[in-house]
């Protein structure tokens, strides 16, 4: 049995079809990158995996069970922005998950239990390179450091699936590369199943194990919303020749222009 099963999945808002007939099997520990033009439903698909949106029709299962209809501990998330809590220091941000888990009523740890938990937190901060910033507030961090923090926050809770919604979209190219290395390292160490939506096609072509291209097969030039997108390419990363990638890029750009027109 596959880890995540998607069968005949549709998502519609009224007349507007966002996703049509999605089919996908993902094994445990895969790192899927989702690329495609804006409005092609990559983020919608991610939101369905997250539990923030529900499918209109079709099957979306995690180990044979339907995905819970609200966000929960099974799935971690890193958004492009606002993923960290401004009222907590860096250390407290990472600690929060453990506190919520251990103290259902107060949501806060004290004394010895806190010291124990902080050991885990500090190890995690070390792993993402934030040890020096442990006592800072999030607003004192750069964009890249905030994303490191958000990643640390999620990884510490060992979610079964980690979802990343354009996590590096707002970062400088150099920083982005460092973040890729960090992410790949944590992924290899933990074996977490990852879905990452990215706007940057080349990022999608390189990172992870599997590339999923969301695109529209049918396009109505007069009514861009009439047809939904689906997965047009499902490729293993690293074994694809550059001609195919060029073809994908051309297609995606064509859809993007059609969407914008």
């Amino acid at each position, binding site marked *: 049995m596959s880890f995540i099963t998607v069968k005949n999945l549709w998502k519609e808002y009224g007349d507007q079809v966002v996703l049509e007939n999605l089919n996908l099997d993902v094994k445990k520990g895969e790192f899927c990158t989702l690329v495609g033009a804006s409005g092609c439903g990559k983020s919608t698909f991610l939101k369905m995996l*997250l539990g*923030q949106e529900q499918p209109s029709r079709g099957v979306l299962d995690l180990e044979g069970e339907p995905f819970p209809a*609200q*966000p*929960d*501990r099974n*799935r*971690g*998330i890193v*958004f492009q*922005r*606002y*993923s*960290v*809590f*401004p*009222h907590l220091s860096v250390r407290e941000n990472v600690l*929060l*998950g453990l*506190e*919520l*888990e251990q103290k*259902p*009523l*107060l*949501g*806060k740890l004290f004394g010895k239990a806190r010291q124990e938990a902080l050991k885990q937190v500090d190890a995690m901060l070390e792993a993402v390179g934030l040890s020096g910033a442990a006592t800072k*507030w*999030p*607003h*004192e961090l750069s964009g890249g450091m905030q994303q490191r923090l*958000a990643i640390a*926050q*999620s990884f510490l*809770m060992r*979610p079964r699936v980690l979802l990343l919604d354009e996590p590096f979209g707002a970062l400088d190219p150099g920083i982005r590369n460092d973040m890729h290395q960090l992410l790949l390292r944590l992924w290899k160490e933990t074996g977490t199943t990852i879905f990452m939506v990215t706007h940057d096609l080349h990022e999608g072509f390189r990172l992870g194990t599997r590339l999923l291209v969301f695109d529209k097969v049918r396009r109505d030039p007069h009514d861009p919303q009439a047809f939904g997108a689906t997965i047009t390419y499902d490729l293993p990363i690293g074994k694809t020749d550059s001609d195919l990638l060029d073809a994908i890029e051309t297609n995606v750009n064509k859809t993007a222009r059609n969407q914008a027109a």
Partner: protein
Amino acid sequence: MRLINRHPGRLSVVILGLIPFALLILLYGIASQQRLAENPSDKLLPGLEKMTAAVERMAFQENRRSGDYLMLVDTTASLERLGIGVGIAALMALIVGILNGTLPLFRASMAPLVSAASMVPPLAILPILFIVFGLGELSKVMLIVIGTAPVMMRDVAQRVREIPQEQFIKIQTLGANSWQVIIRMVLPQVMPRLIDAMRLSLGPAWLFLIAAEAIAATEGLGYRIFLVRRYLAMDVILPYVIWITILAIIIDQCLRLTNRKLFPWYNAGGN
């Protein structure tokens, strides 16, 4: 250089800020002197000596009849009413506002009521308060509560809804239940905003306090002003108004500093 690009230096900011005050005082001084020159017993624009004498009498001498320092009695009475009233209103605002902002089911049933309540002119129901709660302390405190709580409730609820949706989702993925979302994320993020809402509510709170005291009280800053009005005692009224203004500024600044001290992330650009 264009006017919109000309900025005052540090010293000139202070001087420019003080000029209007100085002008006002000067204007008053001239007008007062002129009137007193015509009629030395004029009451409308008393001179500085008369006012200091009045302050001396009200603040630093025991009242001949009651043996109290009247200004102290008035100040403590008024501040007590103001403090209790705004305190209760803030607490109510915190609870209702957070529930309204966080729980859609609660919001569906409570938000219309809060909106309607905030539209009721509080002074229009002052007579009702006097009838229901009597002429004692309770009705004055209630007026402040009723006058300020609904607006603060709406404000707090609005602030809760301004917390990015991403954060609500993130904390759920960390395993939080609804209660934990409230006490670990919503409450701490809304506290500094509640204090801001209190600062804004203090203006109306003073208005309701003085209105209530003017109608039914035996002591209080508003009571005193309206009492001595009968004798055209401007030498008492003016210092009292200045004193109320100073109190209001002090309270406002205390709240501002509390906010800064307690929530360093809030004012340093953390939101």
